[in-house]
Each structure stands twice: as structure tokens, then as C-alpha cells.
């Protein structure tokens, strides 16, 4: 609940901080409506569409409405998938508006004690510290390996958790050991005639829970002729903070990352998670009001490239033989990879280059799967409805392999497969893991 007093403060901050030109840039043509998953899933509710949400933000600025509970719900239910941006002829930066609005609400509203504690622990205590991320993942590993997981499942204790969380527990990958997580390489030579010098942005979750995928990424880069530097002082990209109304936290992380990479003599900074990549390419916007950092952020941004883009660029798929046993493969876009980083053709071209498989495009592959960071946990009901639609489209392709390019999407697709009881027939994999499989 927001108190009336809090609403007043939020309204005042909206007037001060929201970018009026950007709000006015929306001419309300409605071209965004068909691209919005929550608009469609909610049964065409304008308040759950980008046009509606922008109109609501503007109405709060104009004093037409108060930022009440319904207003917050409308913003909370937004996936932040930004599918509305590429289809917007006027070029409205919806994502920026959303981020600012969420930050204003969150910073000026008193959360309940448990929520406050969890937020503090996650946003300040955990994600900004890679060593703690390792410890946390280590705990999960202990849970999985010690037999505790079996006990938990057998006792049915997981039933006490919301359904999506309980299912999520089942689909989490087998995490690496502490030792594996600690001994990370800092430099890797090219294993083919050299093409590019790159730095690798490891990511917080990717370098712990999805360590295997990071290893595969680096291996592919080496095979593609890239020399790789992996700076130790890098940290979480800050996307989770930025999307949850913790803008200051994300600015701090951004600055550390810029510092970690700016003195390296590299052509690109490579990421393998669409969600992180999209946040990294937005650092110049995040730090736009900070004169000391704006230019540095821009230089950083210009080097960011997704792993699929660089592999495609250096013609990896033509130089290295890729082959797999017959299977139907389909691809689920990572929203941020597609809508913000504009990477959609490269992953498809790489998949199509694998011999022996059949690539089948699913309907609406560009529509969000409902993962959206922690959306599938906090807005579980809407998320599961969106996932159900996604699984329908996935099944229609008869694919046995669903490929994604972002950890959140990967977990969500695994969740979808588990929910449908398709474990035996279908698997979800990160694109680099499949490419690695195809190399071997």
C-alpha cells in the first residue's frame, strides 16, 4: 500500500524527473498494441499496454490522476520486454520511461519490513558482490548434492511455495562446485588464426549458476580465432537493479564495469546474456546526467556485442564444421537481445548452419516468454499465462530442442517444459551450449 502522503511525494517526483519530451513523443497511434504481451494476455486492456502506461505516467505528471494502487499494478505488470520499441514509428524510448517511473515509485514508497529486508539483501548484499554470488550458488550446490534436495522434494515442503517457484526449484541447473567457480581464467589465447581481440563480460549468474555456458562461450570464441581477456574486477551489470527501481545501485555497478574494461585494448566486449547486454548498451543513458561518466559510458557501450553477433561476423559457422544428430530445433528470442541489442538474425543463421538438424521458426518467437527477470516470481499469474501461450507455439513446431540466448529465458523455457510434462521429449538449451555440442 502507498499512503496518500507517499502518493503526493511520488507525484511531485514524477513532475520533476519524468522526461516530458519523451512522454509527448508518444502520439498514441496504437502501433505498439499488437506487440505487447500483457495487452494481449489481459484481454486487450489499455492500462496494460505501452500506450496506456505512457498515458498514465503523463497523467500523473499532469496531475490528472494520483499514482494510486491501480497505477502501480499497471506498471508492475509490464514485463519490460520492450517489444513496443522497435515497432514504434515515433521512436519512443519506453524502457527508459518505465525505468525512471519504477525508480521514483520504489524510492519514495515505504516497503513492508520483510520486503525491505529481502530487497536490501538481494540488491545490496548479494548481486553486487561476485564472491557472495559464488557462496550463494555454492549453497544451492550443497542443497542439490547433499541429498537435501531429495529430502525437500520427498517431504513435499516445496508445495508450500508458490507453484512457479516450486517448479523453478526443479528446473535449476546442476550448479558447479566452489572450486570450479573460483578458479576462473583471466586470459585465453585464440585457437585459430586470430581475428579479433575481445574482452568477455562474464555476468554474475552466468559465471556461477551457468558456468558451463560461460566456458562454452569462451571456447567458441577461441575456436573463432578470438583472443580473450576476462578482467577480474568486473561485476553484475545492474539490470536487476535497474528494472526493480534501484537506479542508484545500478549506476554504481555500471561505473565499476566501465572502469574494469576501459583500459583494455580490445575490439569488442562480448556478452552471452541478452538481458545483461541490453543493460550494458544502455549505460550511456543510465549515466547521462553524470558529465564525468557520459563519454566513458558511450565508449563502453560501443564495444558491446552479443556472442552470436561476433561468431556470425567472423564467419565461425563457415570455418568450423557444425553437426548434430537429427532433431527439430526452434529458437525463442531473448526480448532484450532482439528489441534492444537488435540481434535476431545472427543466432538464427548460426543454428541454420548446423548440419543434420531441422530449424523450425515458431510463431511469435519474438514475443516474451514471461520470464522477465524476477517477473515470473513476483507476477506469477500473468507470467504463467504468457508461458502457456509460448509453450503452445513451441509444441506446434514439434521441436525437441528449444534454443534461447539468455539465462532467464532458458530457465523459463525449462519451466514451461516441466509444466507441460515434456521432460522426456523436449529440452531447452542456451545457444552457445548447442553450438558447443555441434562442434564436438
Amino acid at each position, binding site marked *: 500500500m502507498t499512503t496518500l502522503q507517499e502518493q503526493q511525494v511520488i507525484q511531485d517526483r514524477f513532475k520533476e524527473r519524468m522526461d516530458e519530451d519523451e512522454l509527448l513523443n508518444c*502520439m498514441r497511434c496504437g502501433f505498439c498494441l499488437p506487440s505487447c504481451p500483457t495487452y494481449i494476455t489481459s484481454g*486487450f486492456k489499455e492500462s496494460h499496454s505501452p500506450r496506456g502506461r505512457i498515458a498514465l505516467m503523463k497523467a500523473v505528471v499532469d496531475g*490528472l490522476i494520483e499514482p494510486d494502487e*491501480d497505477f502501480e499494478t499497471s506498471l508492475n505488470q509490464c514485463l519490460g520486454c520492450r517489444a513496443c520499441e522497435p515497432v514504434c514509428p515515433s521512436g519512443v524510448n519506453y524502457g527508459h520511461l518505465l525505468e525512471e517511473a519504477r525508480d521514483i515509485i520504489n524510492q519514495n514508497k515505504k516497503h513492508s519490513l520483510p520486503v525491505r529486508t529481502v530487497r536490501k539483501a538481494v540488491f545490496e548484499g548479494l548481486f553486487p558482490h561476485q564472491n557472495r554470488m559464488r557462496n550463494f550458488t555454492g549453497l544451492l550446490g550443497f542443497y542439490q548434492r547433499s541429498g537435501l534436495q531429495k529430502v525437500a522434494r520427498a517431504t513435499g515442503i516445496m508445495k508450500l511455495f508458490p507453484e512457479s517457484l516450486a517448479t523453478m526449484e526443479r528446473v535449476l541447473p546442476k550448479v558447479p562446485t566452489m572450486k570450479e567457480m573460483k578458479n576462473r581464467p583471466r586470459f585465453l589465447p585464440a585457437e585459430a588464426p586470430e581475428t579479433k581481440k575481445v574482452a568477455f563480460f562474464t555476468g554474475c549468474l552466468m559465471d556461477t549458476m551457468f558456468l558451463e555456458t560461460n566456458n562454452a562461450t569462451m571456447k567458441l570464441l577461441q575456436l573463432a580465432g578470438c583472443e580473450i581477456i576476462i578482467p577480474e574486477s568486473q561485476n553484475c551489470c545492474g539490470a536487476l537493479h535497474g528494472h526493480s527501481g534501484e537506479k542508484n545501485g545500478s549506476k554504481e555497478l555500471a561505473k565499476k564495469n566501465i572502469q574494469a574494461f576501459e583500459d583494455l585494448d580490445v575490439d569488442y566486449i562480448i556478452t552471452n546474456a541478452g538481458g545483461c547486454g541490453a543493460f550494458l548498451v544502455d549505460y550511456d543513458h543510465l549515466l547521462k546526467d553524470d558529465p564525468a561518466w557520459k563519454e566513458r559510458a558511450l565508449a563502453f557501450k560501443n564495444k558491446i556485442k552479443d556472442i552470436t553477433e561476433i561468431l556470425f561476423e567472423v564467419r565461425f559457422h563457415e570455418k568450423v564444421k557444425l553437426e548434430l544428430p537429427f532433431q527439430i530445433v526452434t529458437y525463442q528470442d531473448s526480448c532484450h537481445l532482439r528489441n534492444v541489442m537488435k540481434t535476431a538474425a545472427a543466432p538464427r543463421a548460426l543454428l541454420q548452419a548446423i548440419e543434420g538438424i531441422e530449424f523450425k521458426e515458431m510463431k511469435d518467437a519474438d514475443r516474451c516468454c514471461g520470464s522477465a527477470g524476477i517477473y515470473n516470481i513476483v507476477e506469477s499469474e500473468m507470467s504463467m499465462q504468457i508461458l502457456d501461450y509460448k509453450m503452445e507455439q513451441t509444441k506446434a513446431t514439434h521441436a525437441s530442442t528449444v534454443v534461447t540466448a539468455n539465462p532467464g529465458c532458458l530457465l523459463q523455457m525449462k519451466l514451461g517444459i516441466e509444466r507441460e510434462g515434456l521432460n522426456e521429449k523436449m529440452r531447452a538449451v542456451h545457444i552457445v551450449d548447442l553450438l558447443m555440442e555441434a562442434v564436438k
Partner: protein
Amino acid sequence: MINEQIKERIISIVGTENFDDSKVGRLTYSYDATPNFQALPDGVVSPRNTEEVAELVKVCNEHHIPVVPRGAGSNLCGGTCPTEGGLVFLFKHMNEILEIDEENLTATVQPGVITLDLINAVEAKGLFFPPDPGSMKTSTIGGNINENSGGLRGLKYGVTRDYVIALEIVLANGSIIRTGGKLAKDVAGYDFTRLYVGSEGTLGIVTEATLKLVPIPETKKTMLALYEDLEAAATTVSKIIANKIIPATLEFLDQATLKVVEDYAKIGLPTDAKAVLLIEQDGAPEVVERDIKKIADLCTEENAVSVQIAKTKAEAEALTTARRAALSALARLKPTTILEDATVPRSQVANMVKAINEIAEKYQLNICTFGHAGDGNLHPTVPTDARNKEEMERVEKAFEEIFEKAIELGGTITGEHGVGIMKAPYLELKLGQEGIAAMKAIKTALDPNNIMNPGKIFAKDSRKRVVIGQ
């Protein structure tokens, strides 16, 4: 306006989940795609069938509550802005394609069907529904009927009106009538079907429509002609028609529009050309081939600097899709984008383009022009800023002159966007006092309490204002 008692009656008809009077709910139905118009309704209601619509309208009629039927809110005349409050009607539950009749070549639909969904559904059966407004991905058939929407294929195929052959309508008193039928000929009484198409929700609510379909053209070819001179492009338009060729599409875009569209679509449009014509012909392959060749020759004769024919279907589609985004793309330039759709006889297109440029010069405005040149329907658009009062005054004056010029050339104040509230003050310019009086007589007869979308079409006073004040 809607007290607790009325609210209970409404809820008893549609259920709690289909009535919303929250601030957020009302705010998000307070606007459409028309700049500078916003007004909160008292509530928003989503009836599930015709009977519920009729029951709701009866309640509204009894208590004199304005009724505003709304499709996707993509219209450009303020037609669905609830300027007098009242109840906004949504058709999200009434969105079924009820039948595609391949023997009679008709489709029967509910108003909430999305235009493109219908187009795709009939094309899957080898049939064709030609009206294709720019917003067809989101607009609804109900909205198209109420606004009599046009589109890129209007030149050869006509507009929505030409494809509506039967309607089910809920009148202002709550009675339900049916007009027309699956008939090629029908002269039984007044042509109510035609009267209701384009009536902007001021005479009743369309709850079902039967649409005429045609066989899908065998092939299609798309070309782009580039010009160094605006008027040469416009002259070509008249020349093509005078040579007895009716292309499916004949669109005009000036340089300013080209630039913003390219900014958005990034498909390699020739942004150094002063103007382009986007031309499409469809039909039997030999006819298309012959026409396209002839059109290309005519373009060259009229000093087109180059003529490019799209090589693939994807390339052709990219061109038309980009054209559809023109208006919204122009919104990149300035905070407020005001557009009009003055329409003149085809032979006058060049004169109209010339006049628009002179008017832009006179009022020191940047007017970008694009539009369906082939059917004389132009969209002069001014990127401006509603916060700049002085410039808005000039915009207002410029549009007044554009309207006057259009009428002088034998044209009209609106070709396809409708009158709504935005152009109501100018309607008299086109119809004269007597014309307005005759139309008002119809309105009063069918809606004596003036509850159906009040304030639209007919201006409260004759002050001429398009963009200033509300």
C-alpha cells in the same frame, strides 16, 4: 453522472469484471490517436453480446448518459474521445469472425475483430478484403465501419463503405435492427447500411457486420518513382489516371516524410529525392506487367529521375509497411504532430500540393505531405509543439486555408479520417447551413436525447478551431 444505482444496473447486465470506473481504467480510455484531445469517461463497459449492448443503451438513454463506442482508439479525429464523459463501450468480448461464406463471398464479423486478422483469415481462403487503413494491425472492423476508413488500396478498390453490405445495429432507444443482407441488390427502403457506415457512433452501435469479399488478385507488383520536384510527382499522378490506368495503390511522400520513415524503417529509402511515388498494381500477371511498364514510362516522361521495381515480395511489403508508418514516424520530429486529410478530385492533386507549399511558406511552418495521391487524399502534417501557443495559432490558420483551398478545388475537409470533434467546426464549410440542418434532422430523429457519441460531427458553435482549445 453514473450514480451508485445506475452503476449497479450496469453491473447487473455485464458483471463486475466488465465494468470499470477506476481512475486508471477511465484515464486509459480518455484519448485516441488525435493530438490534444483528452477527457475522462465516467466508466468503461465491455458487453459480451448484442443483447447486453441493447440493455446498456437503454439504461444510458433513460439517464441521458453519453455512449461512446470505441475500437482500438487509433482514429485521428477525436471520434472516440469521450469529450462529454459518459460510458465508453469496448468490444473485446465481441471479436469473433462468425462466418466466411465462400458461396456468397461474404464475411460476417463482430465489431471487435482486428482488421488485419480478418484480412489474413479471408486471404487464407483465397479471398480479399481490400480496405487497409494504416492502423490495420491494431484497428477493429467496428472502428473502421464507424469511421468509414480508407487505406492504401482505396484508389482501385474503394473504402470500407464499399464492402459493408449488412449491419446489426443497436439504436439509441435500445432496439435492435438489421439492415441489408448477403445481397448484391437490395432497394428495400432507405439505405441504412450506408448511412451508418461513417456515422462515427452518433446514430447507434454496430454490433455485427456482413462484409463483401472479392477474389484475391493473382499477382502484385510494387514500384518506387523518384523525383527532384514535388509538382512533377503530383502531375504524374493525374497523368497515370488520365491514361486510363487505375493502380491498386498510388502513394505520394515528400522528402521530409521520406527521411523520418527511413529513420524508423531503415530499408534504404531514397532520402535524397524531393518526392517519391509508391505505386502498386495487382491482377492477372499479364495485365500487371503491362500496366507497370506503362506507368514506369509515364513516370519517366514526367521527369522521374529513377524508377525502381521491387524485386521480391518482402521488398515490396517493406515499402508499403514503411508507408503505413509515415504519420507516426513524423511524430519523431516534434512533440505534437497535427495532420489533416483534405481531399480533392484527382485532377487537382498537383494544384493542392502547390497550394499546401505556399500556405506553409506563408505561415512559416514546416508542412510534410504524404498521402493517397491517387485518390486525391493528401495528409499535410505539421510537426509542432502544443506548448508553443504562438505557433499553434499559425498552424490553425494554415489548416483553415488548406480546408478552404480544398473546397475551392471541389474537394472536402476530410477524405478518410472522419469529422469527429476535430473537424466539426469546419463541416459547414463543406455542407453549408442547409446541409448541416438536414444531417442534424436525421441525428435528432434517431437519437432524440443526444446520447450517442455527443459532440461529434456537429460543432457546438461555428468557431473554426482544429487544434486550439478543446
